[in-house]
């Protein structure tokens, strides 16, 4: 009742004050977010750049030797960068087809009742904390992968056995972790395809499968690409789960090698690092930050492109 009295018979002055105050609150909230982004960016650059001058950009980015605590330390993160790129790519290659096809299933072919079971399951997958993925990876995936590793490298004297903590385990965990993102966004994109596209295709005699692959998916292309880019963002920024299953040695990213990602490099050593070592970890953070910024820029471009497509 009181609320109403303000908006209907409140004095001009009260109304104006309320309007003004509300305006300031909105501005403050907006500034808070912008400030957070701004200060994080600033902080990343301030704390990430000193090591570049100290060690040299080339010695950080293009050297493969990571020995931060050695008496003659070297801080090369080439393998770490390669691992992040390769691991993310492989996770996308495995995760995206499964995700997109699940989205097709949910949006097009699933019986309603089944879809109502699968959809909450996907949402639940999105809500599981990443450390749980990591623990399940250690307990279930790693022993299984170790058995395969022992078969593949039977009798090998040069291969260093990882006990199942290697690139392939990390990739599998990442592939599962990006599924919810890919599925949800692809499904929304598929559902946004106008119904007359589908009806026209079916009326022309195309089968359901032909319609899905020749009409609906191409029409939802920009949405699906957005889903993939967001999946890349999720995969490249994930730390907790893969720190448990990747093995964390800075090696060349081969399937059965123990590897270290950009995120896990920061996470695993930050607590005990000192001096230059710590500053280099911040530089790794900066590299990761730049990767994620690039992904976001691509995403923005794509979304704008998608909006144009829809308008034209």
């Amino acid at each position: 009742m009181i609320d109403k009295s303000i908006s209907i018979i409140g004095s001009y002055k009260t109304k104006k004050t309320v309007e003004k105050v509300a305006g300031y609150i909105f501005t403050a909230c907006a500034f808070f977010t912008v400030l957070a982004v701004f200060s994080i960016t600033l902080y990343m650059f301030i704390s990430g750049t000193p090591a570049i001058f100290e060690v040299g950009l080339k010695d950080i980015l293009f050297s493969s030797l990571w020995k931060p605590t050695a008496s003659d330390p070297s801080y090369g993160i080439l393998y770490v960068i390669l691992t992040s790129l390769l691991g993310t790519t492989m996770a996308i290659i495995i995760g995206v087809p499964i995700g997109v096809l699940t989205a097709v299933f949910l949006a097009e072919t699933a019986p309603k009742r089944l879809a109502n079971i699968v959809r909450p399951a996907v949402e639940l997958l999105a809500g599981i904390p990443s450390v749980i993925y990591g623990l399940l990876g250690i307990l279930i995936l790693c022993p299984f992968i170790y058995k395969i590793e022992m078969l593949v490298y039977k009798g090998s004297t040069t291969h260093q056995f990882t006990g199942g903590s290697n690139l392939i385990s990390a990739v599998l965990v990442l592939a599962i972790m990006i599924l919810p993102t890919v599925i949800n966004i692809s499904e929304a994109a598929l559902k946004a395809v106008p119904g007359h596209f589908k009806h026209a295709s079916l009326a022309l005699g195309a089968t359901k499968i032909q319609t899905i692959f020749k009409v609906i998916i191409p029409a939802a292309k920009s949405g699906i690409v957005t889903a993939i880019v967001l999946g890349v963002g999720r995969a490249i920024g994930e730390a907790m789960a893969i720190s448990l299953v990747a093995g964390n040695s800075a090696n060349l990213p081969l399937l059965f090698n123990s590897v270290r990602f950009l995120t896990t490099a920061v996470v695993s050593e930050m607590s005990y690092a000192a001096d230059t070592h710590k500053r280099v970890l911040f530089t790794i953070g900066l590299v990761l930050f730049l990767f994620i910024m690039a992904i976001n820029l691509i995403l923005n471009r794509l979304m704008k492109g998608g909006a144009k497509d829809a308008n034209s």
Partner: protein
Amino acid sequence: MRRTIKGIAALLLMLVFVIGTFTACAGNTNSTGESTDENTSTETPDTSTETPADDTADLSGTITMAGSTSMEKIANAAAESFMAKYPDVTVTAEFTGSGAGIEAVTAGTVDIGNSSRNLKDTETSAGVVENIVAIDGIAVVLDPANKVANLTKDQLVQIYTGAVSNWSAVGGADQPIVVIGREAGSGTRSAFEELLEVEDACKYSNEINSSGGVLAKVASTAGAIGYVSLDVVDSSVVTVSLDDVAPTEENIKAGSYLLSRPFIMATKGALTEQTELVQAFLNYMLSDEGQELVKTVGLITVK
């Protein structure tokens, strides 16, 4: 007019935010073990030992510690029993890692920096002084199915440098060795590598950033070998003797066991330059009472 007001508001907000960020970083002391005044089983009320702290029984104030996660047990136990002895004193401890602890004491944000490794030259030259309060042993652990009970120092070195990659070469079953260690910068890792004289030469297949993680991975992986503090070893893994010396307290104290390291409570400047409170605390740690405490948490006394 409105523009300028908005501008000022935004500036103020920014200021608050920035200041907030910095103070949040500097002053986060989550006090540990305050709820334990009544159940300090480790406390010995017997005051017959002549610690210098006894003359100042009316101590009050706060002591802050930060540092090594390996020292969590000893730091918490010390904080509890010291607070029980001097009810007006609050001791808080954070576990941020040896490097971070030394950094904090150098910056003066804490009174004591806990370190589970000897200080580096850059740290001592910044005026930090190490006070050794206990000695810790490092145990080499294997998965429970492994039948190897003893390794020589050379064998251990060969395993960790990658010269030997199958258990059959050191008297075990024919299965690959999965070499597990801690991450670079870890006190346990640097102690292990220094003691074995294999600094920077180790080829780890897994680098795990906690003792618990090492135990879990070793316990669940056939053919795994890892190292952890002696006091965290549990029944999920088996320990191995080094040069026929078992990793026991007696052996470490006697000096016959290969892998042991100091636990340091570092201060900025010498002990005598510290506040009465910090002096009392460190003297307490080195007193018979404090060393009794060291024993109860599975560490080895310095005397």
